[in-house]
């Protein structure tokens, strides 16, 4: 505002040309003020539910109800404690749920990076018969939403063979329901990740491969020693794009995991929610599983945003 008044006072002593320039400047300032107002209004809309969630998680239900009609609803004031968090841990095995989700997410993302980058390498840097057809098939599968195949897939994984250890003996059994692998293996290969890797790998000069070939390197060595080290951004993009859906998985584990000790956080959350517990505790649970993701996001915020942007521009 100080800048605006300064611009206005100086404009009086200027020529008409100068006045035109300063009036343009004034309108630019006005535009800027308007933009900030709009941004702040949207900012409030985007943040208030989450602030409300965190604040409520610190209050007993009576306090939540009492604060609801006033701005106190958004402030950590009054009867503040971590009791709701202790309540959650006492009621359900949240630690186990968190561990399950971390395990599933790390393995899905980690194995996915290896498997999909190898496929991307094969499709973008090697000349082999059938390559074009395979590439076309991979891209064609992008149109299939997971929801289409979810139900038939339950039927399918229920019949797949699996190895189980029973009383110290390795046995052969059928049915993947209620296992860790059913939450991981179907999501390792990802057509979109393969596509992103292939796209990125084509930007690395092919002369590097030729030089390495002359030195007697195998294709796998070229992949591992040359292409992978040069593709940090591609790996980061794919890791971020596959991390969120893996952590947030809901529909699939809801259908295939009934054992409590194998449940990921999101499904554990839903069961906890149905116990009809206090809202303060429910908010503590939701805060508990949101905070780690928000921290990861805030730390890698730049990478997150550019990954999403890259996925859109190329799609």
């Amino acid at each position: 505002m100080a800048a605006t008044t300064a611009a206005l006072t100086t404009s009086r002593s200027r020529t008409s040309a100068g006045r035109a320039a300063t009036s343009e400047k004034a309108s630019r300032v006005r535009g800027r003020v308007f933009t900030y107002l709009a941004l702040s209004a949207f900012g409030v809309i985007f943040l208030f539910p989450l602030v409300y969630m965190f604040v409520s998680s610190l209050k007993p239900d009576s306090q939540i109800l009492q604060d609801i009609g006033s701005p106190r609803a958004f402030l950590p004031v009054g009867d503040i404690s971590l009791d709701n968090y202790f309540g959650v841990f006492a009621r359900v095995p949240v630690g186990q749920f968190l561990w399950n989700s971390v395990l599933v997410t790390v393995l899905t993302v980690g194995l996915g990076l290896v498997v999909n980058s190898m496929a991307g390498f094969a499709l973008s840097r090697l000349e082999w018969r059938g390559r074009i057809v395979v590439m076309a098939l991979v891209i064609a599968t992008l149109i299939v939403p997971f929801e289409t195949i979810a139900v038939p897939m339950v039927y399918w994984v229920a019949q797949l063979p699996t190895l189980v250890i029973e009383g110290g003996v390795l046995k052969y059994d059928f049915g993947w329901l209620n296992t860790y692998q059913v939450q991981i293996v179907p999501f390792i290969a990802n057509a979109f990740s393969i596509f992103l890797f292939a796209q990125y790998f084509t930007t690395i000069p092919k002369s590097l491969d030729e030089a390495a070939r002359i030195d007697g390197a195998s294709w796998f060595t070229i992949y591992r020693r040359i292409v992978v080290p040069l593709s940090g951004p591609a790996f980061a993009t794919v890791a971020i794009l596959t991390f969120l859906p893996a952590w947030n998985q809901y529909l699939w584990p809801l259908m295939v995991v009934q054992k409590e000790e194998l449940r990921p956080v999101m499904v554990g959350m839903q069961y906890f929610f149905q116990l009809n517990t206090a809202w303060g505790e429910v908010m503590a649970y939701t805060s508990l599983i949101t905070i780690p993701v928000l921290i990861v996001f805030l730390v890698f915020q730049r990478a997150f945003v550019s990954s999403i942007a890259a996925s859109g521009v190329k799609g």
Partner: protein
Amino acid sequence: MTVTPPTVAAETPRRSLRRFRSIKGRETWAGLAMMAPAGILLILFLAIPVILAFTLSFTNARLISPNPPRFVGLDNFVRAFTADPVFLQSAWNTFVFALVVVPVQAGLGLLLAVLVNRRLRGVTAFRVIFFVPVVTSIVVVSILWKFMYQKDGLINSMIDTLTFGAWSGVDWLNNPSTALGAIIVLSIWQAVGFHMIIWLAGLQTIPEELYEAAKMDGASPWRQFTNVTWPGLRPTMVFVLVTITIAALGLFVQVDVMTQGGPMASTSTIVFHAVRKGYEQQEIGYASAISLIFFVAVLLVALIQRRLTREKA
């Protein structure tokens, strides 16, 4: 002695050809070997389930059943369209949801993208803020909003304050005429940041010189938007519309967490209905048929949007 040179000449290309072929051969093996892990997984967990969705939809398969699935022809599809009012209601709800969410979310996303595309101090902070709901799990978001939508919850208390007590709201999720609308609002809130980023990426591909040229010609900000920005965003628009529509058609989590399809099927959706039939009621055959109908809808939308946006370009 005079015969030797031609022999050599004839042999050299043949040998090099053979070597070339063997390199090709090795490259083929390397290619197949490196494609194999992903390829096998995609066949097992994508191709086979797709084929299963097709074949099971013509049977009466059940999840756990002593009897093998029996071929029933088009019975499942006939049943969906003639004998299952909840399916028709679900299809309608999904359609209404998409019809509102697609333009509103795309438009709001573009508005936000234009706002944060300026070189202003602190604008990155706003980008981050608008993106926070996207990284928050939709399960968490649904529970949180269910909490706020309660009869005596935060939303109604805010309405009460803003209207000075003139209107104190309704029981949003338990009222058949407001439940779907309530789900629409939180769905837009959650995902609009994602599309803002996509629009923003599109905006940043438009060369700065075009705007400078437009300014030289004395174009107003609105003219700059309609004549420079909008045409430059066409490819982005296709992507945004297709992704929002497909995501909207797949509406499931919000319904499952917040309303279980109720009250009176007013929020049931195609995917929710398929999961309820296939998983809870174990009717895999019928659920596969519904999934297939959903897939055809997704395919049609993608094709129509592609066609429409291509013609204009």
